[in-house]
């Protein structure tokens, strides 16, 4: 049995802070119920592939520092890239601060295939082709270097640029050039100091050399910076202009702006990490940060922040998670759930037999949200038993063998790791139950009578009623009574420096361990800034003769994943005469005789969908946007998610749902 978990499990292993016992609407942890169940049974956890390129790199590999949203007004230039804070659900808290920045005179540039409300309010919009962002980043870096616009201090002193790489990919460290230090943790990297013409500990160099090779123990070693420049050499300004569908002028303008009109915040969100090679932007953006000083300073950052610097309510001081311990716990595997497509086909995973007989889906909706539902559905049809715990008749629920109705947050008490209790207002309707109750009841039915000796409330008490929490007046009883405990409002416009062991901005990794590890490793070129075309959505793909348009979607204003489907109020705003619609450029529409309001069929090798068309100038001219978040039954034919392919990348196992090409035609003569 496998448990397909949602945004609930963002790492490749069991989450270490599963607090919630009722895991409605997938909240960043698996909860007491699932955690104990998995430990008892050894069930495999199928983690989500959603946003994995970004999460794996930002949160795990690079620990990319975030500034407070309140810091945005301190920036002189804000590059909004793969982000749409004026519109995208879950990210709108940044918009007000970007407005403040603009009002203080900041430059706002939006890089996006779609002319979003964010783009409309910007000084410049770059209509980039989806999936080509790393090319633009590398070209900007090249321009900055060639035109001597580098922030030398950041590059030399606060980035990995001067560190030296050995043949095995590791840094030259103290032990390589002399005596090994007593403690392994003191075996830190060295650099060549121009001032002393010797190797010194990287923190001690007064003028670390950016260039230069040296012989160390018979090996030729060279700086990360030199290796980087060589790696990104092909991605000139002219290359990027052609590849990205931009002009040389646009590339130069943004490169100049972010390096000379500083401090710069690269407001980079998940929008650019949905294509096969998009994980490379994390190396490239870190390099841009090092070149422009966009890290750890007021107004300088190279990612968006999710955390406002303000505090409004009081979260518990300390949790006691000992209730998650299970005697004789079994070891479970964790695999990205997208790979079910391969596993079911081959019967194997990572060289071992791996028969999947049953899948329990909780806190997610794979068929509406994963990339390649056409292939996933084929795989699900070969699995004996699919059970889904759900609130709504999602496409996944629709195709399941059994649905266990879940309770709404107000029908069951639970504690969120954000620091508040969702309070029970009414009894669940019909047969609906909280997730914890469902898992407990399944466990009992499976013969595990003693797996949950405590009630839900008792588990919550055991977690919350630590001496520290009780002393602070933040124990179960208080949260049960009040739900949220308000504190004094504080607001801090913090800027975070790098927090990794070296304290340096990293655009090189000594080793790149993949998220799903079946033994694959990555050569030097993949551990530095670089650009590679997408797996399907690229200009030279032969298939473009049949499917010439670059397809993509986004988090629009009226959807949040697939949570707000079938909503009459929202449909008043987000449909064309009650039907979902796509967006295409007026040139592409004219070629096909399509006008706003026509019914059109969008199709490729993966799937197809019929919806209305909206013709606009506000989209990259060879691109086609489809909405994300409608269920299968909200379309006249097909559903939009089927247009996406099955392309998890070997580094992050990302769900690459913006990596597809398509064709569009009027449907049945298609008059509105």
């Amino acid at each position, binding site marked *: 049995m496998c448990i397909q978990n949602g945004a609930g499990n963002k790492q490749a292993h069991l989450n270490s802070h599963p607090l919630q016992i009722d895991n409605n609407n997938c909240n960043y942890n698996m909860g007491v119920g699932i955690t104990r169940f998995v430990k008892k049974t050894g069930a495999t956890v199928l983690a989500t592939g959603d946003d994995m390129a970004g999460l794996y790199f930002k949160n795990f590999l690079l620990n990319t520092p975030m500034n407070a949203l309140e810091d945005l007004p301190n920036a002189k230039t804000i590059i909004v890239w793969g982000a749409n804070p*004026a*519109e995208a659900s879950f990210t*709108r*808290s940044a*918009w*007000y601060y970007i*407005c403040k920045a*603009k*009002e203080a005179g900041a430059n706002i540039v939006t890089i996006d295939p779609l*002319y979003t*409300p*964010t783009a*409309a*309010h910007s000084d*410049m*919009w770059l*209509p980039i082709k989806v999936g080509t962002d790393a090319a633009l980043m590398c070209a900007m870096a090249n321009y900055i270097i060639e035109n001597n616009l580098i922030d030398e201090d950041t590059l030399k002193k606060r980035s990995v640029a001067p560190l030296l790489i050995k043949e095995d990919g590791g840094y030259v460290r103290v032990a390589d050039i002399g005596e090994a230090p007593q403690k392994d943790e003191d075996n830190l990297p060295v650099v060549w100091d121009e001032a002393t013409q010797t190797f010194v500990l990287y923190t001690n160099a007064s003028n670390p050399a950016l260039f230069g090779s040296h012989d160390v123990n018979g090996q030729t070693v060279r700086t990360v910076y030199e290796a980087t420049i060589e790696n990104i050499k092909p991605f000139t300004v002219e290359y990027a202009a052609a590849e990205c569908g931009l002009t040389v002028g*646009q590339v130069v303008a943004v490169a100049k702006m972010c390096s000379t009109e500083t401090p710069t915040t690269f407001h980079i969100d998940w929008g650019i990490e949905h294509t096969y090679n998009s994980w490379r932007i994390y190396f490239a953006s870190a390099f841009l940060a090092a070149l422009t000083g966009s890290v750890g300073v007021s107004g300088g950052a190279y990612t968006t922040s999710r955390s406002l610097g303000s505090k409004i309510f009081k979260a518990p001081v300390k949790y006691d998670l000992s209730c998650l311990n299970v005697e004789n716990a079994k070891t479970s595997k964790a695999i990205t759930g997208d790979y079910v497509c391969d596993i079911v086909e081959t019967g194997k995973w990572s060289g071992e037999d791996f028969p999947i007989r049953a899948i329990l889906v909780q806190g997610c909706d794979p068929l509406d949200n994963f990339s390649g539902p056409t292939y996933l559905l084929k795989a699900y049809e070969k699995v004996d038993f699919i059970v889904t715990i759900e609130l709504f008749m999602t496409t996944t629920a629709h195709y399941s063998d059994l649905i266990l109705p879940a309770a709404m947050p107000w029908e069951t008490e639970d504690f969120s790791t954000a620091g508040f209790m969702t309070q029970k207002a009414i009894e669940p309707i019909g047969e609906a139950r909280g997730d914890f109750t469902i898992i407990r009841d399944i466990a009992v039915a499976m013969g595990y009578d003693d797996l949950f000796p405590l009630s839900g409330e008792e588990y919550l008490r055991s977690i919350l009623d630590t001496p520290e929490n009780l002393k602070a007046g933040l124990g179960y009883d208080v949260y049960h009574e009040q739900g949220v405990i308000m504190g004094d409002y504080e607001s801090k416009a913090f800027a975070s420096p790098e927090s990794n062991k070296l304290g340096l901005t990293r655009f090189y990794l000594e080793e790149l361990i993949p998220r799903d590890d079946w033994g694959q490793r990555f050569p030097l070129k993949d551990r530095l800034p670089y650009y590679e075309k997408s797996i399907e959505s690229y200009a030279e793909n032969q298939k473009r003769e049949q499917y010439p348009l670059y397809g993509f979607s986004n988090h629009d*204003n009226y959807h949040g994943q697939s949570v707000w489907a079938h909503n*009459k*109020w929202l449909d*008043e*705003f987000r449909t*064309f005469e009650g039907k979902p619609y796509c967006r295409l*450029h*007026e040139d592409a529409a004219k070629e096909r005789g399509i006008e*706003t309001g026509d019914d059109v069929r969008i199709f490729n090798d993966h799937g197809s969908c019929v919806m209305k068309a*909206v*013709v*606009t*100038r*506000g989209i990259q*001219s060879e691109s086609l946007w489809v909405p994300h978040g409608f269920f299968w039954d909200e379309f006249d034919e097909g559903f939009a998610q089927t247009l996406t392919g099955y392309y998890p990348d070997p580094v992050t196992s990302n769900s690459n749902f913006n990596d597809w090409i398509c064709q569009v035609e009027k449907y049945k003569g298609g008059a509105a």
Partner: protein
Amino acid sequence: MTKYGIAIDTKRCVACNRCAMMCKVEHNLPNGVLWNRAVTEGGDFIMTPGGTYPDKLSLKFYTLSCQHCDNPACVEVCPTGASSKREDGIVLVDYEQCIGCESCIAACPYDGVRTFVGDPQYALDFKVGDSTVLDVVSGTVSKCTLCVERVDRSERPNCIDLCFAHARYFGDLDDSGSEVAKVLKERDYDLLLPEQGTNPNVYFLK
């Protein structure tokens, strides 16, 4: 003399319709009825820009609802006196006096701010919003009330408080200390259709 008005910052507004939705919930409006709605100006359809692709595109954002005019055309033409203007400036429709003749709809220069409620259908089978709000009545005209139920207990209209862009201002235009009066002193603004002579009290900051 109190004179309530609104200012909308078109440089911050992103036509997200959150204020429109808040209003719908607050007043338990039926299907197809909106007292406030986001508008964009540019291309033919909402969110489509005008201008030339790719670097001279333009899109303007604002919301449209009753302008609570000084010389309301609706009040002038109303045969029963159902449409009236309070001393504090709020223009209201009294559902009990309204006969649904729709003269106000014809007279008002601001298309779409008021709706004739025929046979109201609702998305939910229970009421939502403020319990003191009067239900819309079949056969009458309804429009923005400037959240009179909230204003009368010294609160701001919901659409003002909700805006995450902080793009909306409300208050007494005749009180120089009110936030709306202050922002109008600092910023340039447009009015909608000033040449129609109704003297609207909704200001669009540029």
